[in-house]
């Protein structure tokens, strides 16, 4: 089946010739009209539209945005904060970068509508430190919006006031985790908080109720306010509404970002048709479908089971290529859609070396609060690196599994899961390669493209 055509909602103007990040250009394209219209409606109605839209968070977990907003404590009388999670630090993910650099006003408009719907008086955009230009572009765009009275005091005479400030991170991945982010915004080490009791919706920034949403999620809110929740929900598939941006990297002919209706495209269509297939003379070997922590898929393996289609349960029997790219299908086969970062590896890649690369990332980025995560991520890195650069032993695979299995469920934040899933899934899917690594290494040529 041929791949569907792209449906560019969020990326409508990305890479469009002549489209610039300034306010006049945005206004020429109908900018802030949706916000003006939204501000004439009762906030509760806007929240309702978001609930009806079925929007799920694009930051990683796929949590219902409408539900997140309803959990906010509105009785305490404390101010409510909104934080835009622009940390974009999950390896393989690079969509928010383009929104912020090329279409910052879309993010600002989506953010302002979300703030209005939730009676937020102050928002912060937490952008990763390695995007200095992105931070400047956003600051300039916010100033333009302030000058035009779209942000700030008594917006467009509605009596509603809300400001946005940009806050730069400083190179720590864990600031992407929402409670780590909040600590960081409070001027501390980004040590994630223990939940309960520190659910951001109740005890977030300065112990006040706080909404943390991803950049892309908030852009979707603008389109939901525009189209209406019900119409938006018709885009995509039930329970996986709207569009999804896939960030494809690694070994394909045409890596890049592609936006499709959620659940309407399969992995095979994305990689073979949209991205042009493997590099000349090579074959796909493995793909990580949702950012580096998502469990790896091995080409050639099959996924079988029953799934719900409409009201019926039907059997499915999929190869990697057949899996529809939505939260539920990817979850069903034991991995996740996560942040939409699709990392492709072909048959030149040695999986032990690829895992060593991932493990080096997680051991560098653990915040160090929980022993299983701090020590476990370090040991997984040490073992895999030693296998590549020192002596590999047949029993290393079992040792690795043992370490990985002791981390998840025993930590303060989901980093514990994130760092153990690569090791667990690489071993489960490519166990033969790990067990045979010591033997294979004796005769193997040194890697042409080292991964560690």
């Amino acid at each position, binding site marked *: 089946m041929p791949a569907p055509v792209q449906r560019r909602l969020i990326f409508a103007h990305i890479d469009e010739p002549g489209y610039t990040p300034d306010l006049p250009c945005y206004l020429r394209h109908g900018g802030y009209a949706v916000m003006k219209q939204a501000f004439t409606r009762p906030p509760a109605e806007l929240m309702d539209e978001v609930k009806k839209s079925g929007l799920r968070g694009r930051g990683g977990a796929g949590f219902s945005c409408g539900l997140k907003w309803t959990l906010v404590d509105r009785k305490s009388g404390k101010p409510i904060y909104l934080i835009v999670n622009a940390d*974009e*630090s*999950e*390896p*393989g*993910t*690079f969509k*928010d*970068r383009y929104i912020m650099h090329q279409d910052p006003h879309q993010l600002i408009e989506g953010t302002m509508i979300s703030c209005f719907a939730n009676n937020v008086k102050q928002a912060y955009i937490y952008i*990763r*430190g*390695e*995007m*200095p*230009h992105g931070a400047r572009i956003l600051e300039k765009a916010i100033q333009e919006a302030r000058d035009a009275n779209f942000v700030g005091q008594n917006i467009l005479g509605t009596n509603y006031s809300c400001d946005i*400030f940009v*806050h*730069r*991170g*400083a*190179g*720590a*991945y864990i600031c992407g985790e929402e409670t780590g982010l909040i600590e*960081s*915004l*409070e*001027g*501390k*080490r*980004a040590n994630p908080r223990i939940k309960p009791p520190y659910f951001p919706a109740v005890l977030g920034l*300065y112990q006040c109720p706080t909404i943390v949403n991803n950049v892309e999620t908030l852009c979707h809110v603008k389109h939901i306010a525009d189209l209406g929740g019900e119409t938006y929900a018709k885009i995509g598939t039930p329970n996986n509404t709207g569009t999804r941006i896939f*960030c*494809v*990297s*690694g*070994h394909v002919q045409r*890596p*890049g*970002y592609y936006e499709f209706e959620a659940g309407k495209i399969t992995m095979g269509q994305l990689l073979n048709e949209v991205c042009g297939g493997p590099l000349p003379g090579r074959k796909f070997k493995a793909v990580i479908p949702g950012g*580096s922590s998502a469990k790896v898929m091995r080409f050639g393996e099959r996924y079988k089971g029953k799934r719900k289609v409409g009201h019926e349960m039907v059997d499915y029997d999929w190869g990697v290529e057949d899996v529809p790219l939505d939260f539920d299908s990817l979850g069903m086969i034991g991995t996740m859609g996560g942040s939409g*970062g699709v*990392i492709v*590896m072909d048959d030149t*890649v040695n999986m032990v070396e*690829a895992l060593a*690369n*991932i493990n*080096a*990332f997680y051991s*560098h*980025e653990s*915040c160090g609060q929980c022993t299983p995560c701090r020590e476990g991520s370090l040991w997984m890195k040490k073992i895999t690196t030693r296998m590549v650069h020192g002596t590999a032993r047949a029993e290393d695979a079992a040792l690795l599994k043992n370490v990985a299995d002791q981390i998840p469920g025993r930590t303060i934040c989901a980093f514990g899961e994130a760092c153990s899933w690569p090791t667990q899934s690489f071993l489960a899917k490519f166990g033969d390669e790990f067990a045979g690594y010591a033997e294979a290494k004796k005769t193997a040529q040194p890697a042409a*493209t*080292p*991964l*560690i």
Partner: protein
Amino acid sequence: MNLKPATFQQIDEVITHYPVKRSALLPLLHLVQEDVGWISTEAIEWIAQKLELQPINVYEVVTFYPMFRQKPIGRRHIKVCRTLSCALTGGYQVCAQFQQEFGCKTGEVSADGEVTIDFVECLASCGTGPVVLIDDDLHEKVDAAKVKALSDQIRTAASRRPAP
């Protein structure tokens, strides 16, 4: 603390962005580091006083975040992405080649004081890997020829700089 007048201004401005002064800690560290190049003990103490914190509260933050440094680096900062997508497309070779070009290892200052090369984690541009961030500018799809061209540019800019 010896900072440019504009930096003092930006510092006072940014503190007003937050209801709690301590929140301005990361912004202040960025501003001071952009002005002076690194975070000294003097800077830590000055920032602590400015935000009504103990120096340890500043110190623990400086040591937590990879972007803050406690010693000077080369005039140009070359950050090569090390993470998987970039490694798959040649990130390790790019890093090795930069080290050869400037005759120094990662984390060191080159003999002429011109560059420091660091291997960093994912820069969120994985689709155009391997990527390299030189000071504030991102360079994409960096191959051997690009490393050479970028290194030449850095050396040319250095030779044109008036002697101190």
